[in-house]
């Protein structure tokens, strides 16, 4: 760190010619770095920055024959059309509610799980727990959806068999709007809670064991140790994760939603992500759906920046950048 600062002060005093020599020297040493970076930079330009450049079709009437540049400008027409449409409120509400409930129910669970696993003293059992609880994370979203279709089937799904056994009436879970969010979120927890806990487990393993010893001396029980040592110890990570998740409140993945969407649950499963996919790719309304996607991206970006600022204003060391 000190060394760097010195170099900087030197740099400001350099004359033009010295600068040239300096740059030449740096390049002689570092050209290989740029070589190593080249493929990645080309990739990012092709697959991330070119699409960002292509976002301009949100303000144009994109026609494939005319191309991105050749299509005519229409200003904010697509945005206006979206807010004039009768479904925009439903799309926004569905997206926001799905994410909000997901955050509410899926966020605390990995933390609790990590705290619980941290209390396990047998190393082998702990390792087994961790390996097994993480396994569902590696199951594909298609297989997860397939499992839900099998288990929740109204005729021979296991869950409905159980309901019938207890004297209830079978429920067509995947065809009822009010069941869409619970199914989506609970299956998400089943799949992701163990994996999400790893992060907190790693943070917990970094807590100084002396703190526990001292607490034991003072007569603290396990509950006290969790409350006064573990939770404060992982609070920074919890806040960082909360920020990242809040920044995702209006993002809309479409794969799982699309896979679980049926004619019956569309009132709850029609989210912005799915709409952009179906209207954009299947309906070929390129400009219109780009506008919707762009709006969402900008909103998310702004939310993220605000949340990050707020976190930083509370405590300088918080925040994700």
């Amino acid at each position, binding site marked *: 760190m000190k060394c760097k600062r010195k170099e900087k002060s030197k740099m400001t005093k350099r004359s033009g010619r010295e600068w040239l020599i300096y740059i030449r020297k*740096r*390049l002689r040493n*570092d050209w*290989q*770095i*740029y070589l*190593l*970076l080249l493929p*990645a*930079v080309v*990739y*990012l330009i*092709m*697959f*991330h*920055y070119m*699409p960002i*450049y*292509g*976002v301009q*079709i949100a303000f144009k009437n994109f026609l494939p024959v005319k191309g991105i540049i050749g299509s005519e400008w229409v200003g904010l027409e697509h945005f206006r059309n979206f807010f004039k449409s009768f479904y925009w409120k439903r799309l926004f509400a569905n997206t926001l509610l799905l994410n909000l409930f997901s955050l509410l129910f899926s966020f605390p669970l990995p933390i609790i*799980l990590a705290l*619980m*696993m941290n*209390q*396990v003293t047998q190393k082998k059992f702990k390792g087994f*727990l961790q*390996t*097994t*609880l993480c*396994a*569902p994370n*590696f*199951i*594909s*979203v298609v*297989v997860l*959806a*397939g*499992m839900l*279709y099998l288990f929740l089937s109204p005729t*021979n799904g*296991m869950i409905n068999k159980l309901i019938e056994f207890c004297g209830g009436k079978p429920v067509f879970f995947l065809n009822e709007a009010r069941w869409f969010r619970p199914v989506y979120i609970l299956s998400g927890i089943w799949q992701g809670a163990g994996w999400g806990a*790893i*992060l907190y*487990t*790693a*943070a917990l393993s970094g807590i100084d064991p002396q703190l526990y010893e001292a607490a034991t001396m003072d007569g603290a029980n*396990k*509950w006290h140790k969790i409350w006064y040592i573990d939770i404060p110890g992982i609070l920074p990570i919890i806040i*960082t994760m909360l920020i990242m998740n809040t920044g995702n409140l209006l993002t809309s993945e479409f*794969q799982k939603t699309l896979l679980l969407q049926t004619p019956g649950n569309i009132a709850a499963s029609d989210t912005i992500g799915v709409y952009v996919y179906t209207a*954009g*790719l299947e309906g070929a309304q390129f400009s219109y*759906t*780009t506008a919707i*996607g762009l709006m969402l*991206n900008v909103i998310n*970006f702004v939310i993220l920046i605000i949340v990050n600022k707020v976190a930083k204003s509370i405590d300088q060391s918080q925040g994700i*950048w």
Partner: protein
Amino acid sequence: MKVKMSTGDRIFTIVNYTLLILALMMVIYPLYIIVIASISDPYAVMRGEVLLWPKDISFIGYERLLKHKDIWIAYGNTILYTVVGTLLNLVLTLMTGYALSREFMGKKFFNLMFVFTMFFSGGLIPTFLQVKSYGLYNNPLVFIVMGAISVWNVIIARTFMKSSLPEELYEAAVMDGCSHVRYFMKIVLPLSKALMGVLVVYYAVAHWNDYMTGLIYISKRNYQPLQVVLKELLTSLQVTDTMSSMLNDVQDNELMMRVAESVKYCAIVISTVPILALYTSMQKFFVKGVMIGSVKG
């Protein structure tokens, strides 16, 4: 000396273990039941008799699945995409991660260029149009080129190389006239095995489970990956066309339904076992891997 547990702590421990074992069962049981249902008689599954052990062992589902040509073409495709794709991912990610872990002119700029893509993207449609304009629509290369680098994994690689390889090592190597590429090949790579383990699993899983690329960029049946074909098989409320073509020799409607169910269980097993096997064989790297990724910067 072992400290004696107080009654409160003992109750706490018992409750804790009970809950954890419950969680364990909730994760394992759905997976277990799929395995035993796949090798049981379809009628026994329907009657709800297959709950703890397989009953009337039957491989009719697997036999039917073997006849399903589409799924095996897709299976081969996915293996190919996964192997080639992961290799490319690994090479590019290690190269990039190494470069970004060094000090050089313009480092800040490149860092920003990478990180920005994590927070802002063009979105589905502009990406689709660009990729199509590159001639990658209906081109199997799309499975390898798209997602050739994940910025998140580059950050993991960079952080790993920064934190586990001492700066003195590099300085000593440079003193001896070692170039970046040579240092990277001869010293960094041999010392990054744990990192490679994590990256291989992350990337291989992503390729294996990739459903979106096939859905969006491929319409030709022969290029489709496993997940797309699986989707047709698994997520339908009725017996679909794919299914009925596989089962058209079965006369009895009821039997057809049963066998269709059985095929689904089998399809889940054959598509998920490889990836879970890879994960279990590499899992020792994970806590470390996730920890590296979580370091800020």
